[in-house]
């Protein structure tokens, strides 16, 4: 009898323990997988909502707000109406600020800040291109200094350089070493991920690398 009681209570307590401790990891993992499958703005909105709920419940974790930000940036990239882009990015910035307040030493957050600046350019290429690509570059360089092994910092710097006209020192030739460096870091990183840390960018970086090599 005693054994039974102990067994049952162990199960119960481990269940209870599970619901407090591992709900975070499980929910995050499930939603991250779902997010990477997103095809539409609505898909990203739904993921953003879930991440935001987790962020509100887990006030000490920066990753939920990180992913909320990422979702809103993706929505901004997909949005066709110019007037809607800034509102998405304003919300993205709020979530990113929250994440930065939790952990201001995380390189991934600066990568995301760089990406957010890049996303602002599409609203007014002629008016914003110069300013925001410089601001993006600043954040990405900060990220790369904080964590030289971060692949996304180099991938986005590559994108920045790639889309800059050659006379400003941009173009495929100038971007190639950055995509290469990103590729190395992606390979290095893929072995140490706990399943919650960001993994995006690998595929597109590979495509960009191939394209730059072809053009050179």
């Amino acid at each position, binding site marked *: 009898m005693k054994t039974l009681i102990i067994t049952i209570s162990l199960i119960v307590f481990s269940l209870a323990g599970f619901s407090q401790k591992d709900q975070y990891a499980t929910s995050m993992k499930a939603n991250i997988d779902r997010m990477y499958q997103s095809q539409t703005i609505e898909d990203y909105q739904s993921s953003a909502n879930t991440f935001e709920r987790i962020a509100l*419940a887990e006030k000490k974790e920066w990753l939920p707000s990180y992913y909320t930000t990422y979702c809103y940036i993706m929505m901004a990239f997909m949005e066709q109406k110019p007037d809607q882009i800034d509102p998405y990015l304003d919300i993205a910035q709020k979530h990113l600020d929250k994440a930065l307040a939790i952990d201001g030493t995380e390189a991934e957050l600066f990568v995301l800040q760089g990406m957010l600046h890049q996303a602002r350019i599409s609203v007014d290429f002629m008016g914003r291109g110069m300013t925001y690509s410089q601001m993006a570059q600043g954040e990405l360089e900060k990220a790369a200094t904080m964590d030289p092994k971060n692949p996304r910092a180099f991938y986005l710097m590559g994108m920045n350089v790639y889309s800059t006209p050659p006379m400003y020192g941009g173009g495929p030739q100038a971007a190639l070493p950055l995509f290469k460096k990103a590729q190395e870091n992606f390979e290095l990183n893929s072995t140490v991920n706990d399943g919650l840390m960001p993994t995006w960018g690998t595929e597109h970086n590979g495509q960009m690398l191939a394209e730059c090599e072809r053009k050179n």
Partner: protein
Amino acid sequence: MKTTLFLILFAGMLTSVSSQTTIMGRITDKSGETIVGANVYLENSYDGTSTDVEGNFSFTTGLSGQQKLVVSFIGYVQFEQFLDFTGETVTLSIILQPDNRELGGVEITAGIFEASDEKKAVILRPLDIVTTAGGLADISAVMNTLPGTQTVGEEGKLFVRGGDSYETQTFIDGMQVVNAYSSSMPDVPSRGRFSPYMFNGTMFSTGGFSAKYGQALSSALILKSNDLPEQTVTGLSLMTIGPGVEHTQKWDRSSVSASLEYMNLAPYFKLIPQEFDWEKAPEGMGSMMTFRHQTNADGMLKGFATFNHSNERMNYPSLSDIDQVMALGLKNNNLYTQVNYQDGIGSKIISQTGASFMQNTDDTDIDQDNLNEKEQSIQVRQVIKYIYSEKIIVEGGAEWQRKEFRQKYFSAEESTLYQTEFTDNLFSGFAEAEVNCSHRFALRAGGRVEYSGLLRMFNMAPRVSVAYRTGKSSQVSLAYGIFYQSPDRDYLLFDHDLDFERAAHYILNYQIMKNRRIFRVEVYRKKYDNLIKYNVLNSPDPSNYNNNGSGYAQGIDIFWRDQRTFSNIDYWISYSFLDTERDYKDYPVSAVPTFASRHNASVVVKYWVGKLSTQFGGTYSFSSGRTYYNPNSDAFLNDQTKPYHDLSLNASYLTEIFKKFTIVHLSVSNVLGFNNVFGYHYQTTPNPDGSYPSFPIKQWAKRFWFLGVFVSI
């Protein structure tokens, strides 16, 4: 016993885990439209969901008792409600209210065109000023493509809504700039003295502007100078009109820059034949120094000084006998310097202090005669801005401006030197409050008082504007104001017993700005009083001058800009209708003044071709005919010129020279070669047959070509 206890405890736990409540419902906005993707959740829990395409949601929670349900979605006020969960399904129907905060405050747009990088919703960007074809990087020429302006080709200045050019004043960081245009020969258009690259904000007000700005009857060109530059850079330019060099040195919180340019039109005039008979093509030099120092997070010290010199000579038909010529020569020296300091006092008060000094000399030879004019201005200004709350801002300020003007005329025939001069001390004060209610309604109300020591006269000018948001992207604004300006220096030289000239503005504006398209329409009426009248031009007799002039101007201005419909093409269209008459100067009756044209229209197109790294631009301008004085005609100002047409094109090619970023800019005005005539000058005395012969006022050349290469090092 122990077993029972455990079992009870266990059962209790099971209930608490398994007692699930379902929450479901639908979320819409005020008008019943479904909201897709709203975040619905219980606070501090993982439980929640997003609404589907029909706005429906449904989720279950293991929580019981009182819980807070939250609904949030972009653009709406967050909805919160406490619910009691007992295990029974909860069904809700929720209506979200639009969040006006996301729209930002309402901006008062009546009479204002703004070019800025700082705000999200502006009509122009600073870059637009330097890329508009026909503008040649001259701020006033570009503002001339906006509605509310009249093209006056032989002057090159801004003429706004039936106002004379002197009725538009330029302000840099709040300080009035005296002599904002370059000095020029008769019938040769002048340019603004200041480069558009100096400013990151330009506000062009065609009326109804704030009480912060005075001494302008019609219009204010409000310029905001650059803050700290981005980086250290050296620039070289080589243009068809001359070379230039500039350098900016930037430190952490300070910067210094200097520039020098030399201009000589002689080589260009040799290449392209000119209508005018130049003895000496315009030659000049310009130099500028600026500094910036950031004293703390809110504190910024800015200063700049410019010095310009120009020299030119031409033969111009003599007005006493147009078959003869008179030799005109003009030498100009202009020094302008200004210092501004802005800082926060606590978190609620911002102090802005400014001081400026200007000295301008025009030395004009007319055959053997000489006219030497020297003007000096000193201005000191202090403004305090009190931010009472996010919704209420109060500003107050005081200014002192001392203006001194001296004219010397040497008559060779009489071998006599005539000298006249005056000094005026103008004291001004203003107070203004801006109230922004619920992001729907904004009110700006204030007033300005001025006292002129020379005139011994006071004026008090109330100004009120309101804006009301009529939709997410549309709004209506109204503006009313009284505007005073001291009589022109040419009259003050001889008569100090005059009053301020006065104008009243009434403006109604509607604007819609959506997805990179802007439409705005503005109707206005302006009433002039106390305009200066005289019997004889330049008479030294004080009784020659009085304030009995008056007039009106009314019309409609329409503006459309579209940066969306065609990819890589940005265009705007302006149209102004103007109905005006005035009785001023030596007019015998009220008449349409010579600078006013009834219809003005511009189409500006910019086309970026990525493959060529080139931006192409085109500007077409049209003005209906202008009146001119014909002494052979019985009626006053009853004759009209032919309409004015101009098509200007430009191209900017971005490239590199020796690995340095380079812009090659080519532009040409009046591509189609329209033979524009701006009016006629008549001989002052009739020929023996009693008729007055005349000559037309033309463009100085049919076309103006410009080629420049700009390298950044």
